[in-house]
């Protein structure tokens, strides 16, 4: 379709340019202005009609229930048949020309013969008159011989000009009479009866000779008219033949172009459609279907692609439903787990606060354990919920302006009592000129809180250091501890769920094993990265980078 439209467009433009070139210098403004308008007025509907016709042709070829190579073979065969027909017409024209040439030769010979007869008749009459004048026996004999000779010529004529038989019969009759009269005249002369011979000559031979001359003239004229008619007919036949050959040549070209265009379009169209469909599938959109009218291999391919899409769509829906189910289940479970926890933690707190009276020290200690374990359980529930939300893509960052300095301050306030309990100095180095960040403040605080909490947990002596700076639009935050360090082999795996360097630590320190996995996902959702640099026995430095201006990353897992 597009190719046809482009072609027409090109033709119209070239045509317009050619017209502009061909036209003489503009005679007036109007003529220069009208030209393109006229060509547009003619071409616009033409273009529409041609585009429609091309579309209909392509659709027709597409719907032919045949295989692709059958279609191609049929198209080539059609063009070959047209060429063979053109050759046959050419041969026919050639043989026609040959016949005409033969006819010309015959006509020419006839005209020559008639002219000969005409000439002979004239000379005959002349020699007969001369013979009468001389009355010489020799001359008379030669005249009679010539007459007979002339008779032979006329006999030959009959053979050539069969279509003028009537005229010739009259000619022959007249001629026979002429010979009789002349023979009679000769006999009179021989008998010395010159005056009677002269009388006969004047009264009968001369008018007869005149008539003969007129008849031969008629014959010549008629033959010449035939010749002219034949030349004219030949010219017309040639023009018709020429038109037929040109017509066949043009027909072959048009047919070749049309079939080539229609067949290639009927192949390329579906291939393009299927390709774009597969692109959509590759991009994760299974809902669309490709519509191909072809009843050949491409139609089958399109049907298979559609079936594949349906299957993928069905699987995707199932998967999506299962994933939503899982997320909903986790959310519900988290709610159901929190409700009893509320009572456990609430009562433990109220009892510790002495709401129900003074408690013996042992009970107070037990309540502390209940409280600590309850909070650990709550932490686990929260972490699992966070993780499931991140994995199902439900965690939406509340993106707003934040200050890294404020985040560090919040985390320090939340953890300094823990550090103080272990006698660990908490050192903070934050650059003075940090830009205002753009991201989810609560989630970034969660990451830093996790890192600092871990550092305090694992460092028994030394210090915990928090540094924050900005380089080239990226925040770099580092938490360094003087803990036991992490072996190289473990450094990548500690960001996996439920993975801890030493499981005995979990029991001792009460970690969930999910904090780093969540931290990694939160940082990645912000378009940043997190990693650890550590040496066993020398402590660890956890670092994360965040773009100063973050946007939620789609589908981060």
């Amino acid at each position: 379709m597009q190719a046809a439209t482009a072609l027409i467009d090109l033709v119209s433009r070239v045509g317009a340019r050619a017209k502009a070139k061909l036209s003489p210098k503009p005679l007036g403004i109007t003529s220069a202005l009208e030209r393109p308008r006229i060509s547009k007025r003619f071409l616009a509907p033409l273009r529409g009609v041609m585009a429609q016709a091309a579309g209909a042709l392509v659709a027709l070829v597409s719907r032919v229930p045949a295989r692709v190579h059958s279609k191609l073979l049929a198209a080539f065969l059609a063009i070959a048949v047209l060429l063979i027909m053109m050759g046959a017409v050419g041969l026919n024209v050639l043989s026609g020309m040959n016949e005409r040439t033969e006819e010309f030769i015959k006509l020419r010979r006839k005209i020559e013969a008639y002219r000969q007869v005409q000439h002979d008749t004239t000379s005959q009459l002349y020699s007969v008159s001369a013979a009468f004048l001389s009355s010489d026996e020799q001359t008379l004999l030669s005249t009679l011989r010539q007459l007979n000779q002339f008779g032979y010529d006329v006999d030959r004529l009959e053979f050539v000009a069969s279509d003028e038989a009537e005229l010739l019969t009259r000619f022959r009759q007249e001629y026979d009479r002429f010979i009789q009269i002349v023979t009679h005249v000769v006999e009179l002369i021989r008998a010395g009866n010159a005056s009677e011979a002269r009388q006969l000559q004047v009264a009968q031979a001369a008018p007869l000779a005149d008539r003969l001359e007129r008849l031969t003239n008629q014959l010549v004229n008629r033959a010449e008219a035939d010749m002219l008619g034949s030349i004219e007919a030949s010219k017309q036949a040639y023009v018709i033949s020429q038109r037929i050959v040109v017509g066949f040549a043009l027909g072959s070209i048009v047919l070749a172009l049309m079939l080539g265009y229609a067949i290639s379009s009927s192949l390329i169209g579906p291939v393009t459609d299927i390709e774009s469909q597969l692109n959509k599938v590759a991009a994760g959109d299974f809902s669309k279907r490709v519509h191909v009218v072809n009843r050949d291999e491409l139609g089958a391919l399109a049907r298979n692609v559609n079936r594949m899409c349906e299957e993928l769509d069905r699987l995707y829906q199932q998967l999506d439903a299962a994933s939503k189910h899982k997320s909903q289940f986790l959310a519900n479970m988290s709610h159901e787990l929190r409700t009893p926890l509320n009572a456990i933690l609430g009562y433990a707190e109220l009892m510790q606060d002495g709401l129900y009276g003074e408690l013996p020290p042992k009970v107070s200690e037990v309540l502390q354990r209940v409280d600590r374990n309850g909070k650990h359980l709550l932490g686990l529930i929260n972490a699992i919920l966070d993780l499931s939300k991140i994995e199902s893509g439900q965690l939406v960052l509340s993106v707003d302006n934040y200050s890294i300095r404020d985040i560090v301050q919040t985390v320090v306030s939340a953890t300094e009592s823990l550090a103080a309990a272990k006698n660990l100095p908490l050192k903070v180095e934050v650059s003075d000129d940090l830009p205002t960040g753009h991201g989810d403040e609560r989630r970034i605080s969660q990451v830093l809180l996790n890192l600092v909490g871990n550092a305090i947990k694992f460092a028994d002596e030394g210090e915990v250091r928090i540094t924050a700076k900005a380089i080239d639009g990226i925040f770099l935050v580092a938490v360094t501890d003087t803990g036991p360090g992490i072996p190289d082999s473990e450094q990548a795996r500690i960001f996996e769920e439920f993975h801890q360097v030493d499981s005995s630590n979990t029991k001792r320190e009460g970690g969930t094993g999910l904090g780093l996995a969540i931290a990694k996902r939160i940082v990645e959702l912000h378009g940043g990265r997190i990693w650890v640099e550590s040496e066993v026995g020398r402590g660890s430095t956890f670092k994360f980078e965040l773009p100063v201006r973050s946007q939620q990353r789609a589908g981060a897992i």
Partner: protein
Amino acid sequence: MTKRILIVEDQEDNRAIMRDVLSTAGYHLIEAPNGEDGVRLAQSERPDLILMDIQLPLVDGYEATRQIKRVDHLKSVPIIAVTSYALSGDEAKARAAGCDGYVAKPFSPRELLAKVREYLPDVATP
């Protein structure tokens, strides 16, 4: 005069904790086990504050809050949402329904009391 608090909460254990901490602190409590009763009691009792659970039978906390806030003489009564929905956007949803404050479950009784005192500061100590 003793300030009166309406607790709309379906879990008896949670109501008991609130009852213990808040009545000890000197508040008079009215209790509703579902959203429908909550709306009805709010209209008849005209409490000074409402603690509203979100996941409730019959009428949920969002809807109950909307219904209460539609009543002219109850418009000024502060409603604090108490919910274990820790999903992001819950606080915003509670505020959109008309809640004035928000406490996440599991709550610490101490924090709950502090929140209540923000709205009802001049309670008589028993």
